[in-house]
Each structure stands twice: as structure tokens, then as C-alpha cells.
């Protein structure tokens, strides 16, 4: 029987540093809730807004798969491996921090807020060689369907990470639905609503609500309005 967990948008933690406003679905930095630490291998889901021209100065990371998905504006990345890149909506960036990496992240525009999701997934192996990549997200094959943006497989659609995880973006018109089948036994899915309203397993979800479901082989997402969402299919044990 399916098990579920609801994290409403209003229940998230957060931080307001003026130039940075961040909502944390799971415990992060100074926000700590022992009941909200992770969903399986999904450890961080931050909903960030960075003021024009501002950003995160050089800082280190290790042993984490770090995924950034811009929602509006442009985010500039530079790292200690010599990578320089800018990502915009329609793109996804991944960094396997592994043995250690330094990077900066800045809002490329001075007059526009950049909004993006930063997602951290526990790696399935510690101390891997650091790597960086960014790709354009493909168009859906048909209306009201999913687009895979992340997997464990380098030859597969989207970026890849060191974990048995699959991410899909969905865009549904009101009244339509999609049946999601888990990619791997033992995985659960965390659905994060970006826009609009949807119903999953009898639960109505609004923008920025999060909903986890596991111990089932599939589930249906029904659009209560035009809606956009992200499905993060991750191992529950890792």
C-alpha cells in the first residue's frame, strides 16, 4: 500500500538575507527540523531567489550531487575545474562535488531576480572525481507528457548523476493526467508543484507544495488547473 507525506509550501523553512530569499523543504543551513531532513536520497530542495547582480561567492562542496534548475532569469556558474557557464529556464545544471570543488553562483543580470531550484541528492559513492555539466531540456514528445531531465545514465536524456535517480518535468493542461511508473523498485517519488494545482493519490497540491509517495509501482497526477511540476524519483534506501 502506498505511503505518502505532504509538505505544504507554507510549512517550509527559509532564510531571508535581503539579496537571497530561500525556502527550504528540508533542513538546511540554519533551518533545522528533525522531521524534515530528507526524502530518501533527496536531501535538499531549495527554492531560491537572488537579487540582480548578487550571488554566492566562492565556496566549497564535496560528496554531493548538486542540481540547479532555473525558473526565471540567468544564473552564472564558475568553478575550480575551469568551467564557466550560464543557465536559463529550459536548461539544467549538475555538479558532482565528489572529492571537492569550489564554485561561485551569481545572478548574471543586474536588473532582474533569478529564481531557481537547487536540489542536492546523496551520491551512491563517496569521493568520486568532481564533474560539471549543463544541458538544454528537450521538448516533450507530445502535449501533457513528461520530459526526463536527469538519470543515472550518461547516454540517457538530460544530465546524469551518481545515484539511481530520475527527474522528470511535467506540464499538464487542466483536466489532463499522466501515469508515472517508478523507474526502479525501492524508489519513491517526490513531486514538487511549480505552478498551478494538481491532485496526486487523492491529495490536492498547490504551487510549491511537496508530496512524497513510495511503496507503490505507479501513481497518477491529475491537473486541477494548468500546472507544471517536477518529479524526483529517488532511492528510499541508499
Amino acid at each position, binding site marked *: 500500500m502506498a505511503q505518502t507525506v505532504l509538505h505544504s509550501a507554507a510549512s517550509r*523553512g*527559509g*532564510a*531571508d538575507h535581503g539579496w537571497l530569499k530561500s525556502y*527550504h523543504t528540508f*533542513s*538546511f*543551513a*540554519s*533551518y*533545522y*527540523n*528533525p522531521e524534515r*531532513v530528507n526524502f530518501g536520497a533527496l*536531501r*535538499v530542495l531549495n527554492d531560491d531567489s537572488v537579487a540582480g547582480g548578487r550571488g554566492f561567492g566562492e*565556496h*566549497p*562542496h*564535496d*560528496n*554531493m550531487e548538486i542540481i540547479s534548475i532555473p525558473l526565471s532569469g540567468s544564473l552564472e556558474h564558475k568553478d575550480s575545474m575551469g568551467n564557466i557557464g550560464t543557465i536559463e529556464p529550459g536548461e539544467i545544471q549538475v555538479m558532482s*562535488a*565528489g*572529492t*571537492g570543488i*569550489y564554485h561561485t553562483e551569481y545572478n548574471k543580470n543586474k536588473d532582474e531576480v533569478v529564481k531557481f531550484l537547487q536540489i*542536492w541528492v*546523496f551520491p551512491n559513492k*563517496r*569521493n568520486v572525481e568532481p564533474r560539471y555539466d549543463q544541458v538544454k531540456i528537450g521538448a516533450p514528445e507530445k502535449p501533457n507528457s513528461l520530459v526526463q531531465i536527469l538519470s543515472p545514465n550518461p547516454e540517457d536524456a538530460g544530465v546524469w548523476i551518481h545515484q539511481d535517480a530520475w527527474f522528470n518535468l511535467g506540464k499538464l493542461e487542466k483536466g489532463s493526467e499522466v501515469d508515472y511508473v517508478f523507474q526502479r523498485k525501492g524508489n519513491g517519488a517526490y513531486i514538487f508543484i511549480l505552478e498551478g494545482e494538481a491532485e496526486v493519490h487523492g491529495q490536492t497540491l498547490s504551487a510549491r507544495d511537496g508530496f512524497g509517495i513510495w511503496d507503490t509501482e505507479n501513481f497518477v497526477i491529475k491537473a486541477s488547473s494548468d500546472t507544471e511540476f517536477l518529479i524526483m524519483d529517488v532511492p528510499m534506501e541508499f
Partner: protein
Amino acid sequence: MMDNLTEILVVGTQEDILQTVLRLLNSQPSWHAEGVSGCEEAISKCKSQSYQVLLLGGGLTDMEEERLKTEIKIIQPGIHIIPHYGGGSGLLYAEIYLALGTDNKKSGL
């Protein structure tokens, strides 16, 4: 060393990241953290001082992590040995709170 401080030992081979982690831990008034870069130093430290938490930072091999878990548990059976992920501020505090069984929520706002 002050009384009632939570003593934390961090092991990590990347000196810059180790220093960042130590700075973040020592910014908390009730924690005191020291860092070492390898197994021998960590084991030696644990023979001479009591720690509540051993944080396994980046750069250690699987064998080194296993060695630390095994040998330091013999020296200090009550110590919490946990892997650190992320290399900075994001997960650090929650990792320590969880290891210590801290139930108090912190809003972050």
C-alpha cells in the same frame, strides 16, 4: 577548553574545505571543533581527548573510513561517527544535531 562544549573532531584531506567546516562549527557557541587530515592523527587525538562526534569529511578512502569507524569506536565507544556531505554550511548543522539527537526545531528565519 570550556565545560559543556560539544567536542567535535573532523577528518578531511582537503585542507581548504576542512578549514571551512571548522570555521562553521566553531561559530556555534556550544561547539568546539578540531580538524585532522588523516587516520593516524584522528586515532591519536581520540586516545588523548574525548569527543562526542567524529565527522568523516571528504577525501578519505572507503578503507580509511572503515578503519576509523572500527578503531575509534574501540577507543571511544560513545562517540557518534558520521559522514559529512556537502562540504560546507548546507547540511553541517543538521548532521551534528541529528548525531546528538537534538529535537529542537530551528526556523532559520
